[in-house]
């Protein structure tokens, strides 16, 4: 009984900060909208009306899926006090190589899918591992090394890879107009429309709910139980919290740094799967920026799986809504970026505030309890 009550109380206090952040962000955005001469009520109601459509919800989920995975990738690093800025480069490179390998081979479906996922994770892990190894051997801070690795990936390796591996052979020169060789149907994840339609009407307008959602859920569950409940997770958190105490407790700090980077990179490798497993190719112009968005997701979600889920949905909602604002003309689409920034800012402040409020409340409760005993 009391356990349930305490769990409920924890949920209440845990949710307080993000809710405060959201309220603040909405209020502040309203001011921005007013100053810009738009009607905030109109803008919000357009966004919500739009989002309540089944097809838009599919869009939101499709968008939230890679954001969530990227958020978990960043969160793994944060748990170990590592700032893996490199999720961006890791996922793009991983998706490119995985798409290429997936396009080369012909295998039965489960094997083909497994191979693509495995290649993506390995490439992400290896690329991120470089930063880990540089940190423990040369003392290079991971922020520096991952920024460099991002640059090398996005402006070097990926361009070169796209040229070398584009479908139908090289077009000659430096032209990269098409993506990689399309992956066989056996290597693509089926969409989840059939599953959704059990509960809803048919999904229209060619919307497909990405099958990678299943992968994302698996990643989220694995992260939650492994970090929270396993021995490895304990070691990871301990090493992140106090590397000296962890070291005398038998947790080698250097190995932990490399392991955390490798795992973070492996998860990052899955971020691009929505792109290549739905479309079947690594396109000439892939979606970028998911890695950086993932950092915001981890931050807002406080490195927890549930938190990252909520954060990913909020960011996806805002991303998708920016289009409708453009269409209805009720506000400029940039307001969405402003809101995303405001939410992150507000979240950081709100976590501080609720933390203090909780300590105060507990102290008051203790004092009343003691007074009752004394009298």
């Amino acid at each position, binding site marked *: 009984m009391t356990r349930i009550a305490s769990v409920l109380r924890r949920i209440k206090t845990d949710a307080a900060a993000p809710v405060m952040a959201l309220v603040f962000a909405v209020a502040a955005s309203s001011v921005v909208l007013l100053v810009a001469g738009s009607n905030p009520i109109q803008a919000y109601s357009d966004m919500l009306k739009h989002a309540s459509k089944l097809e838009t919800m599919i869009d939101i989920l499709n968008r939230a899926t890679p954001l969530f995975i990227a958020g978990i990738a960043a969160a793994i690093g944060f748990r170990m006090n590592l700032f893996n800025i490199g999720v961006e480069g890791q996922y793009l490179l991983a998706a490119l190589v995985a798409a290429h390998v997936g396009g080369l081979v012909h295998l039965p479906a489960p094997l083909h899918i497994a191979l693509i996922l495995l290649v993506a994770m390995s490439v992400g892990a290896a690329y991120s591992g470089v930063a880990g190894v540089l940190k423990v051997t040369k003392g290079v801070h991971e922020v520096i090394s991952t920024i460099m690795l991002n640059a090398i990936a996005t402006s070097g390796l990926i361009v070169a890879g796209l040229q070398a591996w584009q479908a139908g052979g090289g077009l000659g020169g430096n032209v990269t107009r098409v993506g990689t060789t399309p992956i066989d149907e056996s290597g693509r994840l089926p969409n989840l429309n059939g599953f959704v339609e059990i509960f809803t009407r048919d999904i229209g307008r060619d919307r497909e709910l990405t099958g990678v959602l299943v992968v994302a859920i698996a990643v989220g569950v694995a992260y939650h139980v492994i970090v929270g*409940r*396993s*021995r490895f997770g304990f070691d990871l958190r*301990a090493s992140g*919290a*106090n590397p*000296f105490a962890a070291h*005398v*407790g038998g947790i080698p700090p250097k190995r932990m740094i490399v392991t955390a980077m490798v795992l973070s990179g492996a998860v990052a490798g899955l971020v691009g799967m929505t792109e290549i497993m739905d479309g079947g190719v690594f396109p000439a112009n892939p979606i970028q920026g998911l890695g950086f968005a993932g950092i915001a997701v981890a931050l807002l979600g406080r490195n927890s799986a549930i938190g990252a889920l909520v954060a990913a949905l909020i960011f996806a909602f805002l991303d998708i809504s920016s289009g409708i604002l453009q269409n209805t003309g009720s506000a400029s689409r940039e307001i969405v970026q402003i809101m995303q920034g405001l939410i992150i800012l507000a979240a950081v402040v709100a976590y501080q505030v609720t933390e203090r409020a909780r300590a105060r409340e507990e*102290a008051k409760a203790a004092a009343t309890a003691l007074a009752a005993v004394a009298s």
Partner: protein
Amino acid sequence: MARAIELIGITKRFPGVVANDKVDLAVEQGEIHAVCGENGAGKSTLMKILYGMQNADEGTMKVNGQEVRFHKPTDAIDLGIGMVHQHFMLADQLTVLESVILGSEPTLAGGRIDFAAAKAHLAEVSQAYGLNVDPDQLIESLEVGERQRVEIIKVLYRGAKILILDEPTAVLVPQEVEELFRNLRELKANGATILFIDHKLAEVLAIADTVTVLRQGRSVATVKAADVTAPQLAELMVGSELPTPATSESTVTDDVVLQVRDLQINEAGRPVVSDVNIVIRRGEVVGVAGVEGNGQAALVDGIIGTRPVAGGTIELLGDDVTRQSVRHRRERGIGYIPQDRQREGLLLLAPLWENAALGHQTQAPYSQGFWMNRSGMRTATQEIRSEFDVRTPNIDVAAHALSGGNQQKFIVGREMHSQPTLLVAAHPTRGIDVGAQAAVWDQLKAARAAGLATLLVSADLDELIGLSDTIVVMFRGRIVATLDPAKVTPRDLGAYMTGAATQDDAA
């Protein structure tokens, strides 16, 4: 002249406890005022309030007769108050000089820091008070006693007139304590007012003019040091007599647990431990005496496995573990009480029940195979809490919320709970009050009788003599004497520790 400090009715609550309950404290100008009390009595909290680090919930403070209200330490510093904390607050990556001047940097035109002037001032201060430090050394490479010195210099450097010292002697050997006390008397002669916390009552009576005793958050008495004896003071604090550790008959067996041969450990290419040979058998306590910085810390690190060994071997239960990992060694049964509990012993923001597993997380009852065992962790934590009298509202509080002494008791309890075969204990009773200290000694003795082998590093010579079967003295990285505690006095030990006396290995 107005009192230097007057605290009236100070109350401070934390989750689950009232740390200060209407505390009154009056400190006269130019006196040395000791604050004593059990672990968790509220001493550090009161000092932090006076230093502006924490806000009192109720009460008024007066400094030099003026009512004040501090919101942050700089408010207190501006009024000439300086504090050396129970747990040091130095950043690893800074040099001694940088740490000292941090927050009060002398600047040149254009805002650049005037390092030359800073260095000169630092030299002046350390000269004046006989506190020697190397301004260019990294904090990271300092031992606890040296960090202590840096903290004190930092306060003096800023010209504090009212000094708060929270357990400054906890890790100092008697010579260093005397040195510190000489400095304090000098400061006092120059008009400074000093407030300090200490669990060693003999020290309190030696240095203090006045003593205020706190018990469970209340001030229960303020007495002139000249009017009380140590037993009376102990009575006031905990309501019990002053304990002395006295070893019962020897329980040493023939089974060798730890054998260290010709050990050499280097730091920056220079040996800090050389030619060290130690044997510890089941049921034996080997005490290591030495002034801080003579290689004890490196020796301990080498045995635990956190520092690479440059030469020699370490055998645990007959196996060579010289190149084995820390985890391997701990799974073979090494328990470890680190010299700096917050740095190496705790995850300060994690709850107690998670801290209980640290260092033992691969073993039952803390884990089962791949998974941690939450109920096992909680049960073990409750056992540690009750067996070692760890005062805490519950086991879900974060480790930082425990008072210093209770953190220490918790760590001792954690290491003893796993029934180690070898206990490596550095200052195991550091910061523990006299009552609880006796309990910890009893626990160590009982474990020894049951076959525990112990390497005991301590600055408390009575503790060393009382608990050890053999005492080795380390000086400049070498063992310079091997002594029988039954035949040695703290005075003799002191002579060996400073290198004033030597012993032929043959003797």
